[in-house]
């Protein structure tokens, strides 16, 4: 199997879905000739033309709103939000419209669409090109929320998202676009939504994560393994709905949980995982549920020392693992 980068896997998934199903269209800012500011759609405009790969006006609300309309008519739009930080103008369309359409119409109308957006910091993007926004959407029934951590999953999950009959938010760890490489099966395959992956087995404690921090968690696990701490790593992959079974089983085994994400702590996605386990795995727990998250400041600052202060990384995770293991 060829080794490719995360972003290449994402592009491949879109390319193959465009070829497979003519209802699939891409809508977004600079997705055409420019091939996307991160080049996720590079070459697709040339291959599928301006009818399939559509440069939108600079207006996220209507990127999503138009996508919803097209989906209602039977298309399968993939809407790109250039940075997750710019998704808020479309919040009303996503939360009040896309998420509630199926329910409010008693199932008559559904919105099969994907909203892709790069998220996360560590790339010098400052407050508005670094945000993690998953917690806002993982709270909303009717949406699905997916975050891949590696190329093979990214391709398979994105294909599942495109084929899913619901609105799916697909957040991509942009710092990993070119950094994270991996083997990816050629041709068509899917990775099911709603299923976590145990990406490392271990008996001492469970680390729950996704996306970029999952990548760091794996590195941290290697480091502490040398010290004799055996970490089980869960890559959630789908944040809504999340895979309760896999979580419960792992905690039954390890009794200790560390949840890691980059978004700020308070009200972050990790809170739901912790709350779920504090209710449903209470008797299996041998230690406080620990969350390692971004600090409670508005977003990732630009200047390097401050950015580094903000970002979770393998070292910080290793420290948290050691502390929890020692509890």
């Amino acid at each position, binding site marked *: 199997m060829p080794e490719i980068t995360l972003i290449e896997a994402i592009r491949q998934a879109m390319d193959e879905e465009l070829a497979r199903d003519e209802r699939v*269209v891409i809508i977004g800012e600079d997705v055409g000739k420019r091939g996307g500011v991160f080049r996720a759609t590079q070459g697709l405009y040339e291959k599928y033309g301006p*009818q399939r790969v*559509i440069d*939108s*006006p600079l*207006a996220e*609300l*209507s990127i*999503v*709103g*138009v*996508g*919803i*309309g*097209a*989906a*209602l*008519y*039977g*298309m399968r*739009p993939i809407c790109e939000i250039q940075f997750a930080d710019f998704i808020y*103008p479309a919040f*009303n*369309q996503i939360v*009040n*419209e896309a998420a*509630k*359409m*199926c*329910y*409010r*119409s*008693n*199932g*008559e*109308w*559904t919105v*099969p669409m994907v909203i892709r957006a790069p998220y996360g910091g560590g790339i010098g993007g400052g407050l508005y090109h670094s945000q993690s926004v998953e917690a806002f959407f993982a709270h909303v*029934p*009717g949406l*699905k929320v997916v975050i891949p951590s590696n190329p093979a999953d990214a391709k398979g999950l994105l294909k599942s998202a495109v084929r899913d*009959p*619901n609105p799916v938010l697909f957040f991509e760890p942009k710092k990993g676009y070119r950094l994270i490489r991996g083997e990816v099966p050629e041709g068509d395959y899917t990775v099911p939504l709603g299923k976590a992956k145990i990406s490392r087995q271990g008996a001492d404690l469970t680390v729950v994560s996704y996306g970029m921090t999952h990548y760091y968690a794996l590195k941290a696990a290697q480091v502490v393994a040398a010290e004799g701490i055996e970490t089980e790593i869960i890559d959630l992959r789908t944040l809504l709905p999340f895979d309760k079974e896999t979580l419960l089983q792992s905690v039954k085994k390890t009794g200790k949980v560390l949840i890691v994400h980059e978004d700020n702590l308070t009200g972050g996605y990790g809170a739901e995982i912790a709350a779920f386990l504090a209710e449903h795995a209470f008797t299996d727990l041998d230690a406080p549920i620990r969350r390692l998250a971004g600090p409670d400041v508005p977003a990732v600052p630009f200047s390097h020392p401050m950015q580094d202060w903000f970002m979770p990384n393998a070292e910080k995770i290793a420290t948290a693992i050691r502390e929890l293991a020692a509890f």
Partner: protein
Amino acid sequence: MVLPLPEETLLEMYWTMLLSRRLDERAWVLHRQGKIAFHISAIGHEAAQIGAAYAIRRGYDWVAPYYRDLTLMLALGYTPREFMLSLMGKKGDPCSGGRQMPNHWSLKRANVISHSSPVATQTSHAAGIGLAIKLRGEDKVVLTTVGEGSTSQGEWYEGVNWAAVHKLPVVFIIANNLYAISVRQEQQMAVANAADKALGLGLPGVSVDGMDFLAVYEVMKEAVERARNGGGPTVVEAKVYRITPHSSDDDDRSYRSREEVEQFKRRDPLLIARQKLERAGILTAQRVEELEQRAKETVEDAVRFGESAPYPSPEEAAFPVYAEDARYA
């Protein structure tokens, strides 16, 4: 007077306006009787809606309506019985199975998409449907409506802009009844006509007397044909008046004078339609009597039907959150 439509069709339009009016009045009564929780009225808007409805190919073209569009919905085949199910939150409400407030339409069989309460969100949906139609090379048209107040939303602006840039087959109707609840047009916009907004977006904008169903029909016909023939979208402003309070929750006396309301009542769209059709020799006092009688019976039947229908069971509220558990998906 040259008639733009066959007599039969004109009578059908009048009948639908009349039926809408009588159903609507009955809804107010049901509310006063404590039999329904909420009503939001189309009274005063009937002509604008019927003129629009008959300008499209109903059941073929697509519609993204707003809450005042009872007449439009009836013209699209939504039945009085169905309306009562919606009003009463009963099982079988075709719009939402009782999930949404009344007058939040959806009717898949008639290509009417589901809309929500947050105003103007349907505008970009209409543009998206228009985009899909264009991409597929079909000749369908999309009709979408909002009140004039709702055009203050960025939602409206962005949706219309898409349609203008991509020359999409959409007609954007603005039902301008001068008020957004209590807020008058002048506090809402600095243009004299809501249709003037089209100037800033690069598409045609037309204002029309929305109390005159034939005037609306003519203007709409042109806009719909342009859209169908690849000429792109149009903004049509129908100048109407909301003769009732904003909704059953509103009391309009704090923000507008009784004189103003009375004055507009003299331009009641139903009255104007009747006069026009009588003058054209299509309608007689006797015929009106018959239609009134039929409307009365239809309304009674609908109310009885609604009242005897069961409520949804509580557990139905658990579904369908996702398309997987939808009946129709």
